[in-house]
């Protein structure tokens, strides 16, 4: 069988080699990933694709210095060589370390977990999958999208983690995802949309997403965006943001700046640092309405897991509670520095990457209002349902979201579409301006990039619809 456990003797060999070398800590993480993709591009089937990756990553702590080595040659001599290499690397830099590295003490446990799957994607007939993406392509074309790329993929990742402390965790993660790139043409030129769906689940998610209805709605709406020539209002205005926009805000303006490694400067050379400092726990950053949670245990979440890649059992983390910074995302290294326990935020994207702090499923807690109630109380404002362009500075303070599907609100009613409204705002102003949230909770899937070499982590982000009072809006 092609799974990590089938190579378990190699992980044990790595741990034995590390133990004999006298390391303070050692871990071996075997990972086998298999993915299959089918895609259609403007009426034509793209190549059928399979990816199969597999190998072992070995991390050691020697004299307060971290070494990491990996290989995809799954043979005894290559694995032993990698184990010794990780020790050598850690030792080589140990005499230069100015900030000694240590790991928090965590429960030593053995565990086994796998994704709950109702319909195994590999059992679904290929012809059904091809028929599905062909149908979606036809729907998008009929609704006015002359260019489109639609893809479905399924993946299975099996992993086995052993540490010199005695942790032994094995897992099997099944994911399905859908991506759509649509282009519509109209009176105002073109409009483009990227749609991403993803769940840690079996093929049943495909039915759950109601993809034909989704694509019909998205394509129709995009065509209307391409026809729209009405400029948005500029200046201070009330603003309603849909769950898709709220989700990306939670991810970019809360999740990333509250990663403890970023707070400590670990990512400074690439993804940057953070406006948050270690002393800011309890700091009021938003209104009482703002509570943001990162929860790896959500059923079907694209970023879900039961144990992180350091073997710590996952649980929800409340990052901002009633507007106050409440908790950072930690792995064992940052937890040790902060004098706390890891909250299971270490993820490694493949055998050849070391575990670093990542988000999982990050969302804003829903409120008490209906969507209609949020709109009713806006005399003159804007509703942004979705976005294309966004970015944020590398301290996670100055951010921008450019609306794609956006509407004017007049006297509590949604009126005509408007083109490209721009929200450029600080994190403090954004979270401080939220005065109400709706009852619903929706998620979008994404691949979050971080680390060097780059690690793309599947995540969910989401939230309710929210209302912001008197924020500055501009236009493209």
């Amino acid at each position, binding site marked *: 069988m092609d799974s990590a456990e089938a190579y378990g003797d190699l992980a044990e060999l790595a741990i034995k080699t590390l133990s004999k070398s006298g390391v303070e800590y050692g871990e071996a993480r075997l990972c086998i990933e298999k993915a299959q993709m089918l895609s259609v591009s403007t009426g034509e089937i793209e190549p059928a694709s*399979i*990816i199969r990756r597999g190998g072992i990553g070995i991390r050691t702590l020697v004299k307060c210095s971290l070494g990491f080595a990996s290989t995809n040659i799954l043979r005894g001599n290559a694995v032993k060589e990698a184990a010794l290499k990780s020790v050598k690397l850690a030792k080589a830099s140990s005499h*230069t370390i100015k900030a000694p590295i240590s790991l928090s003490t965590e429960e030593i446990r053995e565990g086994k977990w796998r994704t709950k799957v109702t319909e195994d994607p590999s059992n679904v007939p*290929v012809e059904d999958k091809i028929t599905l993406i062909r149908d979606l392509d036809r729907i998008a074309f009929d609704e006015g999208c002359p260019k489109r790329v639609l893809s479905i993929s399924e993946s299975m990742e099996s992993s086995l983690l052993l540490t010199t402390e005695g942790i032994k965790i094995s897992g099997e993660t099944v994911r399905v995802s859908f991506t759509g790139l649509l282009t519509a043409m109209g009176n105002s030129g*073109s409009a483009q949309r990227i749609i991403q769906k993803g769940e840690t689940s079996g093929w049943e998610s495909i039915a759950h997403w109601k993809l034909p209805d989704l694509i019909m709605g998205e394509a129709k709406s995009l065509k209307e965006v391409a026809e729209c020539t009405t400029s948005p209002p500029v200046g201070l205005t009330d603003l309603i943001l849909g769950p898709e926009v709220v989700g990306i805000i939670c991810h970019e303006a809360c999740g990333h700046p509250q990663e403890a490694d970023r707070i400590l400067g670990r990512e400074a050379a690439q993804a940057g640092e953070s406006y948050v400092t270690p002393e800011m726990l309890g700091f009021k950053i938003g209104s009482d309405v703002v509570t943001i949670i990162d929860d790896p245990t959500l059923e079907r979440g694209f970023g879900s897991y039961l144990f992180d890649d350091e073997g710590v059992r996952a649980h929800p983390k409340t990052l901002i509670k009633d507007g106050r910074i409440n908790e950072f995302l930690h792995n064992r290294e940052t937890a040790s520095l902060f004098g706390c326990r890891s909250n299971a935020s270490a993820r490694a994207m493949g055998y050849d990457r070391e575990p670093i702090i990542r988000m999982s499923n990050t969302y804003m807690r829903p409120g008490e209002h209906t969507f209609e109630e949020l709109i009713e109380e806006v005399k003159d404002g804007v509703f942004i349902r979705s976005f294309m362009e966004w970015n944020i500075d*590398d301290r996670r303070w100055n951010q921008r979201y450019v609306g794609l599907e956006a509407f004017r609100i007049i006297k509590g009613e949604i009126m005509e579409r408007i083109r490209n409204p721009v929200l450029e705002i600080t994190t403090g102003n954004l979270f401080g301006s939220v005065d109400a949230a709706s009852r619903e909770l929706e998620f979008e899937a994404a691949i979050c990039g971080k680390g060097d070499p780059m690690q793309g982590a599947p995540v969910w982000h989401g939230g309710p619809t929210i209302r912001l009072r008197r924020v500055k809006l501009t236009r*493209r």
Partner: protein
Amino acid sequence: MTPISLEDMGRLMRRLSRKWRIDEGCLSIVESWNRMIRFCNDSITASKFWRQITLALYFVKENRRATAILETHEINRIEEIIGRLTSTMKFMEASPVEFHLPKGPFQYGAVGDMFDERILVDEDRLIDWVEAGINSSKEGGAERSSGVLTTSRFRRYLYTTEGCEGSEEATRLEFSVRAFSDKNASGEENFSSSSLKGFDPNAVGMEAGSIAHKSRDKTKIKGGSFNAILHPNVVANLMESVGESCSAYSVDIGFSFFSDKMRERVSSPMFTLRDNPRFPGSPGSHLFDDEGCPTREVTLIDEGVLRSYLHSSYTAAKLGGSLTGSAYIATPTGTIPIAQSLIIDPGDYTLEEMIQEVREGILVTNNWYTRFQNYLTGDFSTIPRDGTFKIENGEVSGSIEGLRISDNMLRILSSIAGITGQRKWVRRWDAETPTLSPYILVKDLNFTTI
């Protein structure tokens, strides 16, 4: 899988072709050794090594295409996966596009400085380079610095059913230092090359520290249009999107701002852009692409006029065009044309002349997070980071913050008003396509602020 030989690959390819009745195919194997040292706040945080052998296969059967990217040395497993793909292909319609992989054999020649054994030093030497960068950043004026040093060695082998066989060996060194002078004042400098020629870790650290020091005491300005000088780091970041838009695949799917613009003016006449994996010292050097086509210099934009897209055998047949030696195996696209080594022709300016000519404007030394509202029109924004400076009375003056470039890529290309003769290779975390970048002067670049 090890040791690899072209004979082994030929045997594997023939076996797969026979067993699964493949019409045409290419098999690429890359063996790599990578070393990386990461540091932050002047201290090494991780020392890493990864070794990989990756097999990539692209094949065509009855005009249906399939791709596999595999990390396994077990022949039975490879055969089983190819069998699954051929079963899937039975349910796919044949492509209406008649295309064929290039017929070999070809002579691939050599590229200067593609492999430099001096890069493959031991751990202690790498640590010396890192410490030199850290210490020099302090001499430049930094309080602390972070960064990454990476050395890599690649061996790449190719075998195609159409008679192409080749192998190449390359090295790469990348060093970046991001220095901080206070919490908000930072500067980055980097070095990227296939050889050790010209590598001076002290100079990298010193320049990063110097930019960080100068970027203290930031002030805010109002947004608007400014004549702006873009540092090679920024140019490389923007050229990544330009390179992607030159890919015929992007054109085909409607994600290129060069769609329907062949032989049209797309930039200022002073701008010429090429993709040349044969440029000596390029960190993106290759002798051949994954279809077996020899790499060559491709002029993408010639004095402002769009002259060529980058093609694979499939896009060349579909859109009309000739092979450019740019096709690399990827999922789910089969082979995809990708720029490997972008070169901007040098201009006549020195940086000093450019600054004097601008008189009043902005100098941007680095940026990140480039995102598009519309890839077809080129509407985008990106965020300056590290040192961003006012230019006043023809001199670089105070440090500024809180800016965002919000503009259109075609408008920026058309507004290029100056290019320096001085260029440097940039390949970094947020600019992955190696680019030989000058400083570029853009007229009336739009900046927004909060």
